């Protein structure tokens, strides 16, 4: 029966995250608008945009190659595949054995490369600019992420999300300074990876500062739809990741547990909503930073990760 | 035959005389004087060889004596004098090392050779051999010192030949030295003199001097662009 439960939870999870993805993006936009005193578009607007864009025939530059057409598919595929692996409301999903933090980082990196290559395909100045910045920032974000993984691996003995989540849910760890530092580092990486304020502004097309948007300037029609979808999926993924690692409360255990699932879904929705709210508040309160300040921001995240690992050594030694 | 016997005393005297003449060679400023002192040294060497031949009852040593006398006391000095006259050389020696310092150095060298030879040969029964060896080593070292202390080609050749005198002194002092060594030593002297003469003639031909310091300027791979080369080497990695 367990395998049935595993498959069921996996399918439920898929449906849940697919439904959540547009809502997360739309919800954050709506919340931000509200906080800034505007009415704002409906949280469902991203979904509508997606469906509309999907129906449009894309316009490609004359010298665009197959990369321009394949990359959006690859980007969306990689984002969705990664998201499928991050547990949401229950553990023991069918694909849980695959859910390794390093693998997820790899999938995200692959998505990033697809996006950067698409940006460079036509050979316009902006695409190259965005690609170069995106890849450079990742160079600092990735070590920070790996250090967070190191902290988790030291505690849980594995980088598998399933193991990590289970450990945190038991609560035997207690509150640790190093975990707090790791959380901050992970959040900083998440902000950078999703091109949010203060690293990037998803709502601007100001050429001097944009990173993510610069790469998809050339995309249109269904390609743009796929890129937007990929970006939404990635944002959902990061929020879900933070929730799954640091706030695993209420997650249903593996196996058949209908009630647990209901509780788990409710808890997950609440956690995601809270995270969206926090993100919207954060973005409203803070200004976009200059592009060349970003390395300092990410460097700080890297240092936090480093510090977290070192503190953990000390605490294990003292304990 | 030990200290006090006549044979020993005479041999000792002759050896000491040869060493003394080495000092004279170092002391002399004029080329003619140098040549003269060298001739006397050769004569004394011949006498020493003959005396040893008589004492050791070794007829071969008479041959050595004869050769030494013929070559070193007569032939070579005569040839050198002729050379001097033919080339019309400056008659004074240009010392590279002052007379005083060279004499001081010479005394130190004699001390060194005594210190080296006497303890080393302590096991040898023959006192004469020991003394002779110390004297011969002193003559050899003084000959080298003369080569270093003089810049004139002829003085340098004489230094080399006087060094050979020391060798022969050592060879005759050792009982039963095979003839081949003594003969070849004598032949060596002649050949050395011959080769030196050829080179000296070439030197005179080409450079119109016998001052060997002048030669230094003609060392190959020297004249051009020393500084330039230094610059080229800078900054090149291994």
């Amino acid at each position: 029966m367990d395998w049935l439960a595993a498959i069921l939870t996996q399918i439920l999870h898929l449906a849940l995250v697919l439904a959540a993805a547009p809502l997360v993006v739309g919800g954050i936009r709506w919340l931000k608008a509200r906080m800034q005193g505007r009415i704002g578009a409906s949280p469902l607007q991203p979904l509508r945009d997606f469906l509309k864009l999907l129906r449009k025939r894309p316009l490609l530059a004359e010298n665009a190659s197959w990369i321009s057409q394949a990359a959006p598919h690859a980007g969306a595929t990689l984002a969705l595949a990664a998201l499928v692996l991050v547990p949401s409301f229950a553990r023991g999903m069918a694909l849980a054995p695959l859910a390794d933090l390093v693998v997820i980082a790899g999938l995200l990196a692959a998505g990033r490369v697809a996006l950067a290559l698409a940006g460079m395909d036509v050979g316009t100045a902006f695409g190259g600019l965005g690609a170069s910045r995106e890849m450079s920032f990742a160079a600092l974000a990735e070590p920070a992420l790996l250090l967070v993984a190191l902290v988790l691996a030291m505690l849980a003995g594995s980088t598998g999300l399933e193991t990590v989540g289970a450990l945190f849910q038991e609560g035997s760890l207690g509150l640790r300074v190093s975990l707090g530092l790791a959380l901050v580092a992970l959040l900083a990486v998440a902000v950078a990876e999703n091109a949010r304020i203060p690293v990037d502004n998803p709502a601007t097309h100001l050429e001097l500062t944009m990173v993510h948007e610069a790469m998809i300037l050339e995309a249109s029609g269904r390609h743009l739809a796929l890129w937007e979808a990929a970006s939404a999926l990635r944002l959902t993924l990061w929020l879900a990741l933070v929730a799954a690692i640091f706030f695993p409360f209420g997650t249903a255990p593996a196996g058949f547990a209908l009630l647990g699932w209901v509780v788990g879904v409710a808890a997950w929705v609440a956690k995601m909503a809270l995270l969206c709210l926090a993100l919207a508040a954060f973005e409203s309160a803070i200004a976009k930073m200059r592009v060349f300040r970003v390395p300092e921001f990410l460097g700080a995240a890297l240092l936090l990760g480093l510090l977290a690992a070192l503190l953990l050594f000390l605490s294990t030694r003292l304990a | 035959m030990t200290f006090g016997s006549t044979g020993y005393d005479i041999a000792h005297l002759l050896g000491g005389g040869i060493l003394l003449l080495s000092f004279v060679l170092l002391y002399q400023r004029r080329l003619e004087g140098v040549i003269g002192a060298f001739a006397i040294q050769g004569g004394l060497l011949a006498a020493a060889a003959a005396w040893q031949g008589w004492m050791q009852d070794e007829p071969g040593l008479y041959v050595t004596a004869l050769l030494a006398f013929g070559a070193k006391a007569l032939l070579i000095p005569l040839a050198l004098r002729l050379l001097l006259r033919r080339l019309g050389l400056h008659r004074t020696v240009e010392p590279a090392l002052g007379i005083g310092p060279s004499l001081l150095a010479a005394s130190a060298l004699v001390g060194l050779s005594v210190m080296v030879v006497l303890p080393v040969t302590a096991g040898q029964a023959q006192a004469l051999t020991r003394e002779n060896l110390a004297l011969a080593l002193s003559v050899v070292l003084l000959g080298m010192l003369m080569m270093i202390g003089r810049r004139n080609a002829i003085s340098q050749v004489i230094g080399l030949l006087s060094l050979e005198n020391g060798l022969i002194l050592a060879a005759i002092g050792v009982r039963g030295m095979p003839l081949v060594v003594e003969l070849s030593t004598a032949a060596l002297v002649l050949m050395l003199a011959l080769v030196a003469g050829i080179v000296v003639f070439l030197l005179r031909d080409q450079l119109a001097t016998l001052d060997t310091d002048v030669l230094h300027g003609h060392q190959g791979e020297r004249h051009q662009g020393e500084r330039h080369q230094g610059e080229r080497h800078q900054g090149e990695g291994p």
Partner: protein
Amino acid sequence: MAQRLGAPFCRRGRAPKLAAGDPLSPPAVLTALILILAGLALLAVVAVPLARFAWAGLVVHGFCLFAAAVLAGVGLAVLLAGALPVQALPLGVPALVAVDALSAWFLLLLGLAAACSALFGLAHPLAAPRLLAAYPLFLAGMALALVAADGFTLLLGFEAMSLASWVLVAADHAQAENRHAARRYLAFALLGGVCLVPAVGLLGGVAGDLSFAAIRVAPPQGWVAAAVLALVVVGAGAKAGLVPLHNWLPLAHAAAPSHVSALMSGAMTKVAVYVLARLLLDLSGPAQPLWWGVPLLVLGAASAVLGALRANLEEDGKTLLACSTIENIGLICLGLGLAACFRAADLGVLAGLAAGAALLHALNHAMFKSLLFLGMGEVAHGAASRRLDRLGGLIHAMPWTAGAVLVGAAAAASLPPLSGFASEWLLLQALLAAWRVGDLAFQVLGVAVVAAAALAAALAAAAMVRLFGLVFLGRPRTPRAAGAVDGPMPARLALLLPAALTILFGLLPGTLLGLAEGAVQVLVPHGMVERSGLAMVRVGDGGARYWPLALTLLLAVVGGAIWWLVRRRAPAGVARGPAWDGGFMAPPQHLPFGDPVTQPSAAGFGQPLRRMLGGSLLAAHESVEMARPGDPGAARVTSGFTDPSEARLLAPLARLRDALAARAEQLRDLPLTATLMLPFGTLVALLALAAWLEAG
């Protein structure tokens, strides 16, 4: 040795398949190997007179292809069936060869890389007699170093490989920079020899028996072990391209013909890694202390970061790839160092994991780097340049090459599910467990190394995007780039073979690890080798897992679903229009494919990283000269960097050497009489010494 290595196989009930009398019995395989080596040497001699015929290149590369296949076959056979015994080479000097699992693993690697290189050579053969002679010798030297069973044979192969490849690096010696590269290359090869020979001597000890079997019996201890470590790290590290002795590598790889660069980067640096592994992990015995692995760990991490960063700043395609080689060599050495540390801390499983990761990455890197160098060679042939700023848009003109290079670049960027990701995943997992070694200082070091490795991986991804994006994407930057075409069939095969293997190795890391088990056993004798399945690799019980096949399946299913959905809902086809010109002026008449100035440039693409990291690590600089107000001239940006090894290490050493040489030269300037002083002084000094000894 045969028994020693055969034992684990027997214990698990897998009896050696090769029995005596069998046509494939060990001596027969070894004889075949020796014959191939001799054949290569003979070919080198014959190639000189043959070179005047047009078909000589085909013959030489064809035979090399055959030899490579045999080498790979021998390697595979030994990995499957057990080690071959020691045998003496029929030379006038005692020289032993044997193939154990470690040798076999690297033989397999060499054979595969050489096969790709030789295939490419069939399409674009070398022509000059010296090159035709040097190419097979290069191959033979590498193979000899790998199968050597004593110190002498090892060094013989090592140095022969260096000399032969020097001829190849100096292939185009009319160019001054190529001569410079060749000179530096050979100088570093000499350094390698000068360090490795005494290391072997120290290992051999007073008995002077240099056979590996004898050395294993009496591993070095105390200061001898430390000296061996230092000498081997410098000697083999110089050949592998470890920081700070990596300076020659980008120069030489750029100077050599492309398929030679591929072989140098793919296989030759691995031979140096093999020497490192053989001398430090195998022959020095498992009883070394914890710090034994630390130099490799630290230098490996430094190489990884520096190489990857330089790859983002270089503007020549092959130089860029060479810097990426430095990075990957750094990662491999890091794995070996980690294995040594784990071994010293009695963490057998982790030691096996780290060693397996290093070996796997060596193989994977050999494949994808060969692929990339060959692809770059194809580009250089087609578009007549390797400079990133003179290429562009080649994906249209050279679709085969572009496709293959994309696979290689993705693997080099360590993207799942390709081979580079699999081995880096293993390596990272081993690193993430470094804290299990109890020492606090080591734990702190481990954290720093994790950050460095991750930084290197991300930088490598940036470098690969830069390479592929600037060379294959965008618009052509020169007319030659616009008119390029794909190479002939053998060249395409030479690209497709490593591309296919890169994908295959990415999908089956577990199988490969199983194959490498014997080799891992050689490096970590008492370590447990984690049994990995066909579909999965894992880190001990309850540890992390990686399921490449399942992941690929997931990607395929998700991708297929998305594709299907888009196809269902979206209109088919695309409309085409001119690219947005970004506000630039229309290109001049002679640039029908657009003005290259409007495209991202190599220097521009590297700018963020140059500013972020280049300034502190590579002394990078950048300056803008603006035209004066009113002057319509263009602004000019100049940027550059200096490798610290040049400024901090090589230049001071060269200055010291020149100063010493100038001092020594004063001896020559002495006048004649002073020259006579020298022997006189020597004699007097010796006499005084004798007198003193007598008195004392």
